[in-house]
């Protein structure tokens, strides 16, 4: 285990990234509003001080609910940032505002009937609607039984509610509570472990936790180094310092439109830091 931790580079200080002149020049290109929010999204990362951008699908209360829930599902602890710090709430918000949330590719013709578990999802609601209804009903349940909405509950109270949802013990009307929980948990995992271009997994929080280096394309030299850790900086499809892409139509519109451009940082700063730390060249293989 120690071997691996040694290979994980420290994140560059947020200020260094945000002062990059190329970042400013990027803002010139796109719509000003979107780009400004990008700046916020990209530069606040790495702690509870992160200022979330205005939600696109959620109401502010709904977002508080989600933040309070994902903070328990993947908490910040000694191992590193949790889902909130990794931007997972913004990831989920963007996903629900896009084709996933709207169930755009899904067979949604009736009649809708309840079936067996083996027959899969049969509710007449899109994922976005499941969130909206589910959040409303859970808050009603919490207010009634605990005197406060979910977001205002103590961590252990929230854990209990989440377990009850998972076990199907809370009545959410037409939505089985386990369905709501599974959707929330599934999206939370996705946001924590998906490529950072989707807004979650900020500063590679999820990938650093597990040791996944990101989508590299060539392991011919390394695959037979049995039992040895792979040493390389983390990388995203957007480079080593991806701009958090906030999508109107994730995932298909990823490379188009304002706010969905690739990273514009020089990779050097990250690299120099790594080289300095190890006191040697960052890349074990290859020649310069």
């Amino acid at each position: 285990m120690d071997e691996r931790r040694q290979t994980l580079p420290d994140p560059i200080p947020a200020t260094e990234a945000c002062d990059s002149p190329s970042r400013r020049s990027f803002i010139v290109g796109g719509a000003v509003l979107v780009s400004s929010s990008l700046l916020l999204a990209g530069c606040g990362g790495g702690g509870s001080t992160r200022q979330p951008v205005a939600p696109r699908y959620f109401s502010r209360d709904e977002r508080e609910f989600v933040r309070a829930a994902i903070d328990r599902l993947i908490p910040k602890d000694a191992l590193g940032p949790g889902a909130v710090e990794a931007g997972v709430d913004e990831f989920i918000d963007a996903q629900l505002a896009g084709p996933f949330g709207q169930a755009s590719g899904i067979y949604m013709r009736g009649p809708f009937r309840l079936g067996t578990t083996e027959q899969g999802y049969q509710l007449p609601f899109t994922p976005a609607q499941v969130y909206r209804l589910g959040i409303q009903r859970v808050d009603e349940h919490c207010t009634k039984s605990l005197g406060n909405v979910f977001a205002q509950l103590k961590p252990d109270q929230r854990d209990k509610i989440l377990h009850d949802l998972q076990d199907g013990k809370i009545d959410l009307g037409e939505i089985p509570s386990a369905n709501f929980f599974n959707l929330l948990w599934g999206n939370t995992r996705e946001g924590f472990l998906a490529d950072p271009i989707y807004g979650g997994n900020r500063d590679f929080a999820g990938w650093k936790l597990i040791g996944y280096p990101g989508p590299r394309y060539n392991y011919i030299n390394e695959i037979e180094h049995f039992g040895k850790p792979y040493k390389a900086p983390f990388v995203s499809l957007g480079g080593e310092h991806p701009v958090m892409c906030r999508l109107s139509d994730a995932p298909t519109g990823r490379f188009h439109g304002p706010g969905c451009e690739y990273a514009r940082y020089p990779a050097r700063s990250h690299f120099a830091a790594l080289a300095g730390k190890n006191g040697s060249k960052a890349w074990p293989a290859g020649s310069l």
Partner: protein
Amino acid sequence: MAKKLPEVDVVLVGFGWTASIIAQELTDAGASVLALERGGWRDTVPDFSVTQIQDELRYAVRKEIFEQTRRETLTFRNKPEQLALPMRELGSFLPASGVGGAGVHWNGQNWRFLPTDFVLRSHNQQRYGKKAVPDGMTIQDWGITYEQLEPYYDKFEYLCGISGQAGNIQGKLQPGGNPFEGPRARGYPLPPLKRCAATVLFDKAAREVGLHPFPAPAANTSKPYLNSLGVQMGQCTYCGYCEWFGCANYSKASPQTTILPVLLKKDNFSFRTHSSVVRILTDSSGRRATGVVYVDQNGREYIQPAQMVVLCAFAHHNVHLLLVSKIGAPYDPKTGAGVVGRNYAYQVSSSVNVTCKEILNPFMGAGALGQVVDDFNGDNFDHAGKGFLGGGYIALWNTGGRPILQEYLPKGTPKWGAGWKKALHEDYLYSTHMQCHGGVMSYRDNYLDLDPTYKDAYGNPLLRLTFDFHHNENAMSKFLTDRATEIAKAIPNRGINPKPREGDYSIVPYQTTHNTGGAAMGADPHTSFVNPFLQSWDVPNLWVMGSSVFPQNAGYNPTGTVGALAFWAADAMKRYIRNPQPLVQA
């Protein structure tokens, strides 16, 4: 009013593996061939580029390159007495949409079936007695033999650039290969892929428990390869993004990387995308197909006349098209009569998670990078007293370590929270899993027909799937899982987590896209829709490709056999073109 288009010699429904093979072969023979594809055009660049394809969320989780259920899905139930409900989300299997079909997003696990698989019924009855095949199990022989198909397996392997180690060349066993495989005329075109840490551990452990591991035959090129059509392929770099993704560096065999560069340059070939075929047309006798009707993306209908119609779509769609076009006798589970929709089968799978003591770097992988034992596949072992027929392989596939979906955690790991986080942190780099991949027999009550209630985007009734595993599959799967657990125990580990299959078949979790049957091939027109050359018994200028012709499913991934059968059928079609008659008299 549908617009009538100029006639072509051959119209292909779909433009994936089988269509590409048939088109390549028949255009060489001089025929004018048109492929109709319901999805869009796509190619290595830009669609599968290194700049975008390694995106687990977009492709594996949101399933962007698969069929959307909004346009086409099916309804499902486990038992005939249940109410079938639509499969609203893809899960258990993932049909493709777009040029190249599932040949774009497969792993490249490329197998030959065993010689006994082709004579399943007669072989088992001969070895284990007439009663070995229980009532209701409708397995049957294929009407062809392994020996007949061998040259066509070879053709597909040299088209794809399969990396592997032969186990049996012309009857002579080869060290390091699969000792159970049928004899092959020559070895694979490329040597096996490199091994990764997990497959090395599996290999050692399997040997320790007395089994015969070998490197899986892979349609991922271990070296740059110039294929049999002169098309150049790259070399696999173990990026771990095969399954559910297109390949960025031309190293996974697909229609795009093996056939299309040659096929698309031919003047007598054409294709149309966003063209969904909704009917096969027949003349008044019902004995001759006259073409197809298709709908473009703007909802306009066209009649495409053709001298020959070849169904090259996904297994379900081929059967669906036959049913809505009222071609062939629909199967009736009550009487057992009829052939269209009969003998639907699938794959039975289970797994064993292993948390090892050394770093495995699971993200360095390839779709068919695996080490396999075939000791318990087909009839490679004595079934006397086992209580089931058939079998499957046990493999350690290292297809990749994609973080969202490829999570193989130890038993007792909390589902979420700090405990889950800790387990992922400690175990991701050390975890792997073995897959038990078994055949499924066909049964009287597993079948396809039309749903009475639900309709697709074109107003056609949805296909209805009635399917469940039977005692044979459950017993066999348990047997395989137990054997896999024995191997797992021989790997130095921090924990083993067997995941046997349990309960009824569920359409929700992904299992395999190995759906078979519904238009079975065979020597008897009462139990098969196509003859041994894949030509319809009823409508001799109509042909069916793909796994829809499997009379039941073997213990292997189907693509190798699908490819071989397409080449086999293409040869028959060339004979048919010279002399348009049924190749077998019913």
